[in-house]
Each structure stands twice: as structure tokens, then as C-alpha cells.
């Protein structure tokens, strides 16, 4: 076995890479580096769009993420709420994810500055979990109040003042889909934008960001915040750095490690490939 194959063998031991990855992230989390962050045009577009909303904007927000995706999506959601707060927003929250109710309570607990200034039933309401189907999104779009008779806290939706002004898709200034999955994203396009032309905004995990791009490029959606990196940029734009900004140093560390492995992979691969070709020729 040549030395290069030995190197390849060592680099291929997955457990070493795994431990390195944990070590890099752990060390950087304990010793932040404060690496500067560049702001992408796409993030700025979303910021500007929200900035231009009228006073008392009405929003529909689907909290479709689970604890795993929460690390990425919650900072973006909080940044959005903080940017909206001075405008006195009216927000109808719901969730198509069974874990959504947990995530909504966590969102509330982690943004006390926002929710302490909003009055339940008047400024915001939470409709709880509704099943993840296209018919559900269409039902919410056709009138949330009639569909969900009581909120998860037991109050009747019929008497809530917020539903007098924000009930049907056409009432909302913008519908926000915070999602870890492409399903609700596609259904927002089909059931909220297509029939009602209500502007929609995506906040999605980085995994699905690229595959949702066509809807942004075709202007079916007004914009998209994709992933922890854009959430961090959003936090910087509203001048309230939070958990996403804090995490981005560790992101850098992990990325650099992976990039090093990619480069090493190619440095090892090419000599081996050339050697095996030569070997075949001589034999």
C-alpha cells in the first residue's frame, strides 16, 4: 500500500472526522471569534419589503418547524417580529406541524420583548395545530375563524377582535411560511398566492432554500430568508444580533473543516486515479 492510500485510509475513518467536527464546533462555541458577516441582497430585499409595509400590517404566519429546524428558523422569526413590532402588527399564527405548538410557545418565551407588547386576541392569535394537507392551507385562506372554532387555550375565535380585520387570505398584507419542508411552501403558492394573490414570504431552512428559488424568481413570493446564515444577516439588519449571529462563527469553523476535507479528498483522489491507470497499462 502506498503512502497516499494510507493517507486516504486515515482520512476515510469517519469517526475521526466526526470527533473533529464536534471539537471544532464546541471550541468555537465556547470561544466566539466575532467573524464579520456579509449581507446578501436577498436578505436586504426582505428587510426592505417589511420596512415598506403600512402601519398595522396584517400577517398570517405558519410556524412549520420542529425543534431541529428551530435553531435556524426561530432567530429569523424573532427578527421578523422585532422588525414588525413598531408598526403595531396584527398577526394570525397557526401551525401545520404537529410540534408547532411547542415551537410557538418557545418562540413566545424567547421573544418576551415582542409578545409582552402584543395583546392576545387583539394583536395576535394562535390557532394551534391543523393537519398538514393542502386542504388545510386552503381552509385557512378561505376564513380561519370559521374553520377553527376555538384556539388551543379554549377561547372561542368568534369573539376575537383580530378576526374582524384579519380572517381571509385577502385580508393579509403578507402571508409568511416559516418552514422546514417544501410541502407547505408549495401549498402556500398554490392555495394562498394563486387564487388570492396575497403576497407570500418564505423563511425556510437552508436545505430547501435553493429548490424554492423559482417561486421567488417568478415573484410569486416577495422574498425568502433561507437558513441560519440569512437569519444572522437579518438580525444584523434590524441591529439586534441574536442566536443566529452567535452561531455563525461555529458555522464558519465547521464549514472550513468540511472544505479542507473536500480539498484533501481531491488531492488524494487524483494521484490514486493516475496510479491505478498506470498500473493497468503496465499489467
Amino acid at each position, binding site marked *: 500500500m502506498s503512502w497516499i492510500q494510507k493517507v486516504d485510509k486515515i482520512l476515510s475513518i469517519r469517526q475521526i472526522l466526526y470527533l473533529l467536527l464536534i471539537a471544532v464546533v464546541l471550541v468555537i462555541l465556547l470561544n466566539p471569534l466575532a*467573524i464579520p458577516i456579509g449581507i446578501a441582497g*436577498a436578505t436586504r430585499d426582505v428587510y426592505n419589503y417589511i420596512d415598506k409595509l403600512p402601519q398595522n400590517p396584517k400577517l398570517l404566519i405558519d410556524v412549520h418547524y420542529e425543534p431541529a429546524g428551530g435553531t435556524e428558523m426561530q432567530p429569523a422569526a424573532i427578527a421578523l417580529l422585532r422588525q414588525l413590532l413598531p408598526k403595531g402588527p396584527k398577526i394570525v399564527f397557526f401551525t401545520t406541524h404537529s410540534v408547532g405548538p411547542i415551537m410557538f410557545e418557545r418562540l413566545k418565551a424567547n421573544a418576551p420583548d415582542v409578545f409582552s407588547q402584543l395583546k392576545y386576541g387583539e394583536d395576535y392569535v394562535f390557532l394551534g395545530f391543523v393537519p398538514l394537507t393542502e386542504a388545510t392551507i386552503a381552509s385557512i385562506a378561505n376564513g380561519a375563524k370559521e374553520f377553527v372554532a376555538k384556539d388551543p387555550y379554549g377561547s372561542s375565535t368568534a369573539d376575537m377582535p383580530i378576526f374582524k380585520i384579519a380572517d381571509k387570505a385577502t385580508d393579509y398584507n403578507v402571508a409568511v411560511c416559516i418552514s422546514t419542508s417544501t410541502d407547505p411552501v408549495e401549498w402556500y403558492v398554490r392555495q394562498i398566492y394563486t387564487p388570492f394573490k396575497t403576497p407570500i414570504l418564505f423563511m425556510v431552512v437552508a436545505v430547501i432554500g435553493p429548490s424554492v428559488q423559482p417561486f421567488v424568481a417568478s415573484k410569486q413570493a416577495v422574498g425568502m430568508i433561507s437558513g441560519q446564515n440569512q437569519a444572522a444577516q437579518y438580525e444584523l439588519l434590524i441591529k439586534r444580533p441574536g442566536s443566529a449571529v452567535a452561531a455563525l462563527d461555529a458555522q464558519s469553523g465547521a464549514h472550513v473543516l468540511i472544505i479542507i476535507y473536500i480539498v484533501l*479528498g481531491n488531492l488524494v483522489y487524483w494521484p490514486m486515479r493516475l496510479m491505478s491507470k498506470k498500473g493497468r497499462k503496465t499489467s
Partner: protein
Amino acid sequence: MSSALRRRGPYTVITLLILFFFVTYLFAVPTPVQQFSSQLLQWAAVVAYFAILVGTIDIIRYHLGPLRSKQPGRWQYSGALIAVLVIGLILGVSGVLSGKGTNYEPFAWLYNAIYVPSNATIYAILVFYIASASYRAFRIRNAQALLLVIVGLIIMFSNIGVGYVIWPGFVPLGNWINAYPVAAAFRPIIIGSGLGVILTGLRALLGREVYGRE
């Protein structure tokens, strides 16, 4: 009668519903009909909740198997699962009936202690797989792979602070790649899936889709 209902029933239901929505969406129909279509949507959403109940029952039934047969190496886990599931169900249902829903403290404790960290971790395991895949998979074997690797590296650098420090242009470049070539690359897939939905609808109407068959 019952056999005809059995064979044609589900298919007929699907056909009628598709045709109904086809008409109400595209044509100017009287307001009561429009309202009825919105009613149907709400009904379907309510029905969908029941599928989740059935899913839970299926899990219990599935794990009763190893438990009953004392399958070595499995029955202990299945037993633990059923025990915890039943405790969870009792806490959850009593929470709902007491009007506190999922905020009922013992139930909230259960999901905050077990569900939240487990869910987050089980997805986090994937970071290891993607790291080791990067080492082997991102090898430049041919021209297609070369393009994939170059784009991948640019996007990686544009996503992190280090990239911005090395060259600030990574951020707008990454933004451009995402906004234009990537949007164009996924567009045919989206058009294809849209056409796929339409044809699935037609096949369901013709009774040639799986839901329509006996």
C-alpha cells in the same frame, strides 16, 4: 349493492370531488356553491386529523408483536415504547379534557424532556453523514462533478463569515447564483411537478390511479 359500493365507491367520491372543485374554481358559480366548496375544504382538514389517530394506533399494534412473542433483542424496547406511549396518551388526553391542552404541566414536561431534545438530535446526526460524504463525494471525476464542486464551494464560502473575510464578493456572487441559475435549474422540475399533479388528477378521474383501484 355493498360490493358495488366497495369497488366503485372510493373512486366515485374522488371523481366527484375533483370535478366539483374544477367547476367552482374555474367558473362563476352562485355564492352558495362557492361557500359549499369552502365547507368541503374544512371537512377534509378535519378528516385529516383522524389519519393521525390511526397512525398512533398502528404504532402500538406494530410494537405489540415483538412484545407478545418475546422476540429476543426487541421485546424490551417495544415494551418500553408502549409503556411510555400509554403514559403519554393518558397525560395528553387528560390535558385536553381539562382544557389545558398540551400546556398541561406533566405532559409538557414529557415532551420537553424527551421529545424536543430527541427530535433535534436525530436530525443533527445527519451532520456527520454530510461531512463524511463531502470527503468522498466531492471528488472531481468528470466535467459535471467539476461544475458541482466549484458551485458548491462558492456557495459554502458565501454562506459563512470566513468566506466574506477572504473575499467580500463571495456574498453577492452566492446571492446571484441562488437568484438566477439555481432558480432556472429548479424551474423545469417545478413545471414538471405541476404537470405531474394535473396528470395525476386526470388518471384519478379515469380510475387509473392507485386510490381508484380495488
